[in-house]
C-alpha cells in the first residue's frame, strides 16, 4: 500500500505531511514514557523487526499474497507511541533507501500506514483487553480484532485521501470497493498472524507484550488440594475483593454481549440486509454465505473486481464501515468513561480505588 509520487495532489500531500509530523511529535513525547531510558535502541530494534516482518509474505487465496502492515503488531508489542514511531521510521527508510513509496507521499504513507493502523488497533485493543476476562487467550482475541479492523480502516482512510486529492477521477465507489475488498482479505491474514505472533510471544515472555501488562496473575498455592491465593503484602486492602469482582464480571458479560451484538448487527446484518434487496428473506443462511464467499473470490483479482458491478463491494464496505464505526464509537465511549473514572479515582485519595 505504499503510495508513489504523483498519486495524491500537492495540497493533500502537504496536509497529510503536517498531520504525520504532528503525530510523530506527539509520539516522540509519549514514547519516552513507554520505553524509559531504553527508547532509541529498543525502538530501533522493533523498527527493524517490523521491517523484517513486512517482508514476510503470506498467501491470500488464489495467487495473491499480502504482507503485514505491522501497525497493530507494533502497538500491541511496544505500545502505541513507540509503534507509530517505529512504523514511521520504517516508512521513511523505505522511501529514502528502497524507493518504496514516494518522498512527497511520505506524509500520506505515514498517516495511512503508521498512524491510522496503530491508533485504530490500539483504540480497539485496549478496551477489549479490559472487557474480556483477564486471560492470555483474550489478549490474543483482542489483537486479532484490532489487527483485523486496522487494515481496512487504513484502506478507508486512503480512499478518503484519494477522494480529497486524487489525481485521477476513478469513481470513489470503485476505489473504496477495490481497496476495502482486497484489504479485508489482507486484514484477515494480518489479524491471524498478529494474533498468533502475540500469542507466541506472550507464551514465552509475557513481560515483553506492552498490551498485556495488566495481566499478571496472582500467585496461587495448592494447599490440601485447593487453590489458595498466596498472601500478598497488599492483601489487607484487597480484603473485600470477592463481592465487587462478582459484580464486575456480570457487568463485563453485559458489555461483551452488547459489543458483540452491535458488531454483528453493524457488520453482518447490514451486509445481508443490502445483499438481498429483492426480498429473498427465505434463502437459507448458508446460501447467503456461499454467495458471499464467491464475491470474495472475485474481489481477489483486481481486474474482475474493478469490472464487476461495484455494488457488492459497496455492501462489503458498508458492513465494514459499520463495524469500524461501532469500534470507534465503543473506543471513544469507553475512553471517555475511563477518563472520567480515572479522574474520579484520582480525586479519591484512598489507594483502594486507584488499584482497581
Amino acid at each position, binding site marked *: 500500500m505504499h503510495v508513489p509520487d504523483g498519486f495524491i495532489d500537492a495540497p493533500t500531500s502537504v496536509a497529510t505531511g503536517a498531520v504525520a509530523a504532528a503525530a510523530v511529535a506527539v509520539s516522540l513525547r509519549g514514547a519516552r514514557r513507554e520505553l524509559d531510558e531504553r*527508547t*532509541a535502541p529498543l525502538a530501533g530494534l522493533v523498527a527493524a523487526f517490523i521491517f523484517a516482518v513486512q517482508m514476510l509474505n503470506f498467501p491470500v487465496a488464489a495467487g495473491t499474497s499480502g504482507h503485514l502492515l505491522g501497525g497493530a503488531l507494533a502497538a500491541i508489542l511496544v505500545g502505541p507511541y513507540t509503534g507509530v514511531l517505529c512504523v514511521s521510521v520504517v516508512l521513511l527508510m523505505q522511501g*529514502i533507501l528502497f524507493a518504496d513509496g514516494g518522498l512527497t507521499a511520505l506524509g500520506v504513507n505515514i498517516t495511512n500506514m503508521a498512524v491510522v493502523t496503530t491508533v485504530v488497533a490500539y483504540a480497539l485493543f485496549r478496551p477489549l483487553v479490559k472487557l474480556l476476562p483477564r486471560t492470555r487467550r483474550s489478549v490474543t482475541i483482542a489483537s486479532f480484532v484490532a489487527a483485523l479492523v486496522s487494515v481496512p480502516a487504513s484502506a478507508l482512510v486512503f480512499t478518503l485521501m484519494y477522494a480529497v486529492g486524487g489525481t485521477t477521477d476513478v469513481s470513489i465507489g470503485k476505489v473504496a470497493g477495490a481497496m476495502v475488498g482486497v484489504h479485508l482479505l489482507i486484514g484477515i491474514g494480518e489479524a491471524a498472524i498478529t494474533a498468533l505472533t502475540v500469542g507466541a510471544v506472550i507464551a514465552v515472555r509475557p513481560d515483553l507484550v506492552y498490551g498485556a501488562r495488566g495481566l499478571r496473575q496472582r500467585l496461587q498455592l495448592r494447599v490440601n488440594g485447593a487453590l489458595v491465593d498466596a498472601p500478598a503484602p497488599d492483601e489487607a486492602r484487597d480484603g473485600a475483593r470477592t463481592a465487587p469482582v462478582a459484580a464486575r464480571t456480570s457487568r463485563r458479560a453485559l458489555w461483551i454481549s452488547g459489543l458483540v451484538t452491535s458488531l454483528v448487527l453493524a457488520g453482518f446484518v447490514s451486509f445481508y440486509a443490502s445483499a438481498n434487496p429483492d426480498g429473498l428473506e427465505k434463502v437459507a443462511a448458508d446460501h447467503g454465505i456461499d454467495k458471499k464467499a464467491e464475491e470474495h473470490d472475485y474481489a481477489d483479482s483486481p481486474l474482475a473486481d474493478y469490472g464487476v458491478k461495484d455494488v457488492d463491494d459497496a455492501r462489503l464496505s458498508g458492513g465494514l464501515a459499520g463495524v469500524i464505526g461501532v469500534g470507534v464509537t465503543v473506543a471513544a465511549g469507553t475512553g471517555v468513561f475511563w477518563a472520567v473514572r480515572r479522574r474520579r479515582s484520582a480525586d479519591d485519595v484512598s489507594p483502594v480505588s486507584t488499584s482497581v
Partner: protein
Amino acid sequence: MGAGHAHRLYRHGHSPVHGLPPHTKLAATFAFVVVVVSTPREAMWAFGLYAALLAGVAYHARVPAGFLLKRLLIEVPFVAFAVLMPFVAEGERVEVLGMSLSVSGLWGAWNVLAKGTLGVAASVLLAATTELRELLLGLERLKLPPLLVQIASFMIRYGDVITDEMRRMRIARESRGFEARGVRHWGVLAKSAGALFIRSYERGERVHLAMVSRGYTGAMPVIDEVTASRAQWAHAFTLPLAALVVCLLGWTL
C-alpha cells in the same frame, strides 16, 4: 537476502556525486521530487527532460544503467495499478486497438507512471551514491528529531542481524519440508515471527546493556561534523534548479 538490503543498495565509488555532503544530496533529491510532482501532466516533454537530467546525474555518478533499471523494478505493483486505470476511470472515452479507454484514465495512468518512476529513480540514485551512515548523519543535519535518527540508525544496524536470523529460521523451516502454501500455514509463519521478536528483543537487551556499560547515555556522540560549503550546495542543487526551469517552462508553454 543474506547480506541484507543495506549493503547492496550502495555502489561504492569516488565520483563527484559520491563526494557531496549527504544533507545537500538529500535536500536536492527532495526538491527535485517536489518539482517533478508539481509539473502539469500535459507537458509530456518535460518528463523526458527530467529523465535526461537524471540520466546525466547517473552518468556523472558512474552508476550503470543496468543497475538503475534493475532497482526500478520495485515499482512494478504500481505499474499494474496504472495499467488498470484507463479501463476503470470515468468520463470521455476513446477507442484504442478496439478497446474503449477513458481519456482521463489514460492521463492519470501517465501521471502516476511518469512521476512515480522519476521519484523512484531519484531515490535509487541517492541510495546508490550515499552510504547509509552518511545518510543518517545528513538527516540529522537537516534537523530531523535526534530520537528519530537514532531509531533509524539502530534499525539499520539491527536490520541485518534480524534478516539473518529470519533467513536461518526460513532455512530451518524449508529443510523440514515446509512451504507456505495457504491459510493452514499462517500459524507457522506467525510462530516464526513471534520467535523472531523474542530472539531479537533479547539480543537488543544485551546490546543495550553492553552500550550502557560503555558509557551510552541516550545519545550517540557525533565525531565527524559534516558541513557543506556554498559551492557544494550549489553543485548539489544544479539538478533541482534545472528541473525547476523545466517545470516553469512546462507551466508557461
